[in-house]
């Protein structure tokens, strides 16, 4: 024996034990029964194990992946001290330019502002006096906004009880949310996205609402295109019926009526009200009429009438089947004041609970709301002077609820009632709490992998990889005999070591990651093939086994290093520049190659040396 092999075996032994140690939690977790997991979860020990296992990506396990982006243009618009059309057009232009060229909005905003020659200090005097100051402040505000969204989301997702939610900031203005195994994707989506501005608006009383509807009907009727449009949309059975212009729309609010009547039967040529449905105490719009109604509301004609009226129409956030006996779902429609009475930030606490005994709402779900002193003062004034009126709780321009004001609320402590279940109350409470954000958040990417597809891809993918691996292993043994067996040992260890590193890095294994693993297997096998072919060549030249092994390894090593280092460079670059899936691929590839160099060169060689030193061989099984 030329070299002392003991230190090498010590190194190998240490690494082998580390591999086992690092992979044990994953193995333990995989083989754990659901009951056991539940038990550990309640005792809080599961988290500790989970932090040590290889996490499977959503593409493998099923779940929801969402990328949220703060709407910076809207934020910039909202932050202006002075808002006019010129600023709005600069913001719009900057936004278009940013989308077209994939650049930062604020950079484009600066350019657009300079190009247009508007003085930003006029619009943002509170943020600073120079362009640089203003832009730095805006950038800070934007960052702050997304950080608040991040915090609120983290807070919220915990409340939803999803196991292992991942909420991460990506870049400056984005948040990536991963919810594994989520069942109700719509509820999750709604709650993630509704991080916008919370506002309280007074709802205009029914007679004013009636007036505006009549006004809109009359105004629109003169506009033939809309009339034609809505006739197409409306019921054909009432076509041709002539009606009086000055119809009284108050029937819409007939509180006594508990049957539903579609208004188009009452007012066939009333373009606006024909889209509406009367509900007890509320206006509603059928889902099928929603698009037509939105188009109408966005039309210039309606806008100009509404501008003069000092009010606006807003829809409820969700559609319900409000009436028994119909399958159609409705959105409620509210006519509210143009400007809010209260905005975001004033809510200190909002809690969903069951009403205390003795009160009018005993046992019913309620939301208790506490406001800060500033909010309380305004709230007290607003409620005091509007008893009997309704106040709409508006988030993201959608009305979540419009409870009536029963009495003056002086201290800011408010109780909201009228929920159908505790979940509804909880959702409203979360929304009230989170309402302090100045920028809306948009979903720009969403992927849901159903649990069955995830399970399928795991089982099929794993099976295929294992079959492939077995083929390679068998082939190596047949083709290279003893040497092949050594290479197989190194290969298996290579894979385990990569997985162990992934587990300790808490990396996520995704499909592209598995692709990286396959490439690693290929490269690892290739390293061995290069060495073995070289050894065979040397043997053919008549060298002794020992000399053949030595020169075979020495010559192969430069080849292996050059080939692997180039791929290593590629994986590093991909890691640096790539996003999501490419990054996952690069991580696995990087570690895989490093380890395969180690296993191929160090481990197999050590085993070979032992093999040779123990017997004085005249032939080599290769």
């Amino acid at each position: 024996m030329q070299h002392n092999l003991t230190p090498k075996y010590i190194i190998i032994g240490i690494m082998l034990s580390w591999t086992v140690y690092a992979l044990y939690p994953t193995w333990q977790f995989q083989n754990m029964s659901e009951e056991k997991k539940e038990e550990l979860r309640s005792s809080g020990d599961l988290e500790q194990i989970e932090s040590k296992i290889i996490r499977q990506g959503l593409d493998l396990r099923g779940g929801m992946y969402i990328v949220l982006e703060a709407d910076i243009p809207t934020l910039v618009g909202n932050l202006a001290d002075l808002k006019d059309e010129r600023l709005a057009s600069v913001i719009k232009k900057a936004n278009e330019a940013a989308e077209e060229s994939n650049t930062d909005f604020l950079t484009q905003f600066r350019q657009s502002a300079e190009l247009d020659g508007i003085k930003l200090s006029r619009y943002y005097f509170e943020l600073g006096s120079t362009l640089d100051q203003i832009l730095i402040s805006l950038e800070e505000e934007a960052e702050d906004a997304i950080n608040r969204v991040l915090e609120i989301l983290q807070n919220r997702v915990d409340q939803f009880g999803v196991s292992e939610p991942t909420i991460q900031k990506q870049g400056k203005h984005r948040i990536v949310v991963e919810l594994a195994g989520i069942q109700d994707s719509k509820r999750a989506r709604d709650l993630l996205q509704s991080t916008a501005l919370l506002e309280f608006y007074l709802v205009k009383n029914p007679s004013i609402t009636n007036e505006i509807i009549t006004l809109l009907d009359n105004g629109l009727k003169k506009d033939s295109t809309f009339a034609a449009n809505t006739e197409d949309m409306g019921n054909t059975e009432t076509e041709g019926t002539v009606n009086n212009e000055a119809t009284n729309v108050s029937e819409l609010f007939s509180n006594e009526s508990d049957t539903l009547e579609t208004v188009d039967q009452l007012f066939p040529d009333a373009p606006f009200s024909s889209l509406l449905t009367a509900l007890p105490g509320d206006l509603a719009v059928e889902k099928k009429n929603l698009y037509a109604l939105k188009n109408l509301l966005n039309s210039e004609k309606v806008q100009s009438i509404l501008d003069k009226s000092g009010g606006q129409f807003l829809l409820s956030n969700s559609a319900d089947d409000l009436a028994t006996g119909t399958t159609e779902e409705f959105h409620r429609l509210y006519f509210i004041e143009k400007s809010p009475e209260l905005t975001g930030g004033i809510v200190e606490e909002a809690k969903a609970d069951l009403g205390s005994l003795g009160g009018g709402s005993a046992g019913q779900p309620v939301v208790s709301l506490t406001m800060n002193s500033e909010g309380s003062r305004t709230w007290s004034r607003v409620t005091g002077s509007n008893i009997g009126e309704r106040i709409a709780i508006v988030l993201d321009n959608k009305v979540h609820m419009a409870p009536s004001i029963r009495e003056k609320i002086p201290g800011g402590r408010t109780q909201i009632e009228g929920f159908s279940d505790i979940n509804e109350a909880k959702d409203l409470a979360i929304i009230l709490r989170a309402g302090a954000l100045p920028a809306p958040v948009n979903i720009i990417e969403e992927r849901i992998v159903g649990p069955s597809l995830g399970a399928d891809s795991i089982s099929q993918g794993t099976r295929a990889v294992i079959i492939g691996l077995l083929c390679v292993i068998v082939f190596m043994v047949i083709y290279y005999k003893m040497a092949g067996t050594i290479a197989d040992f190194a290969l298996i260890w290579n894979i385990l070591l990569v997985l162990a590193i992934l587990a300790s890095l808490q990396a996520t294994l995704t499909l592209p990651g598995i692709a990286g693993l396959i490439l690693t297997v290929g490269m690892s096998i290739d390293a061995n093939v290069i060495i073995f072919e070289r050894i065979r060549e040397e043997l053919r030249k008549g060298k002794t086994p020992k000399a053949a092994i030595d020169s075979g390894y020495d010559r192969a090593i430069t080849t292996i290093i050059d080939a692997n280092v180039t791929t290593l460079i590629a994986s590093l670059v991909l890691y640096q520049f790539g996003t999501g899936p490419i990054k996952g691929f690069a991580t696995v590839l990087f570690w895989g190659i490093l380890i395969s160099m180690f296993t191929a060169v160090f481990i197999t060689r050590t085993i070979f040396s032992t093999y040779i030193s123990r017997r004085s061989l005249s032939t080599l099984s290769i």
Partner: protein
Amino acid sequence: MRIVKDTNIDFMSKSSLALASSAILLILGLISMVVNGGPKLSIDFKGGTLVAVNFTEPVDINNIRSAMGNISIDGQDFDFSKEEIKHFGDNSNVAIRIPSLDNEPTEFSSHIIEHLASIYPALVPESESEFILTTEKVGPKVGSELSSDAFFAILSALGLILIYISIRFEFKFAIGAIAALTHDVLITLGVFSLLDYEISLAVIAAFLTIVGYSLNDTIVIFDRVRENMKSLKGSDFTSVINKSVNESLSRTIVTSVTTFAVVLILFLFGGEVIHNFSFAMIIGVFVGTYSSIFIASPTVIKIAEKD
């Protein structure tokens, strides 16, 4: 056991034939891409919506297609019959892909799922989580960012590899390696376009794998060339390359065959999700091996001749 005995094949004399067939395939692929208006990108890059559902029994795509022709969402009418509607894996699964719409309704994918369910109400599994296989929605902005990210990443990786090979070998070898890589990716792109396969994120991962594999293969041969250039000083460069290719042929074949077997098994048994990925790999392994011998090496010879 040995599959390949000592060979002495004049590979380089056949390089013009190989070059011609590569050129034909490349041109075919390019024509197909031009005809189709660029490679067929998945919604990962274009933006759009993908919905895949699982019925309990096989369903008829044509039926679904015509049923998707007239759909009303919140009162707005759509015609999705021209969109891509396909089986997803087996015949009871259906996938529909719709590019980003300007007037996209909210909860778009939920609406599509509802409509799909209403076509064969009796074949919808009871639990929603069993019915919905996957839904994806990618905004157009994200898609275009992803494309430029992927493009930039691949380009910078190629640049650095060029530098490394120039340092370790010679500049002409670097050019040869890059030529082979570009060839491989273009051929794979072309074949994807010809066979109407879609380029998704997973396929990009496959491209990266191909680049890695092909590079490895090329370097192994170049390394032998570098070694033989020292030991066979004075010999004709072409014969040095031929000798090197022959000497490493046994290794090339063993490695390619094993890798090919692995990706073939992945393709056959790996399931729908990695189908396109493993298909790209099958082409890539083949093309990667071929290009090391017939693209990378002749390129180096051509450059050497000019010097």
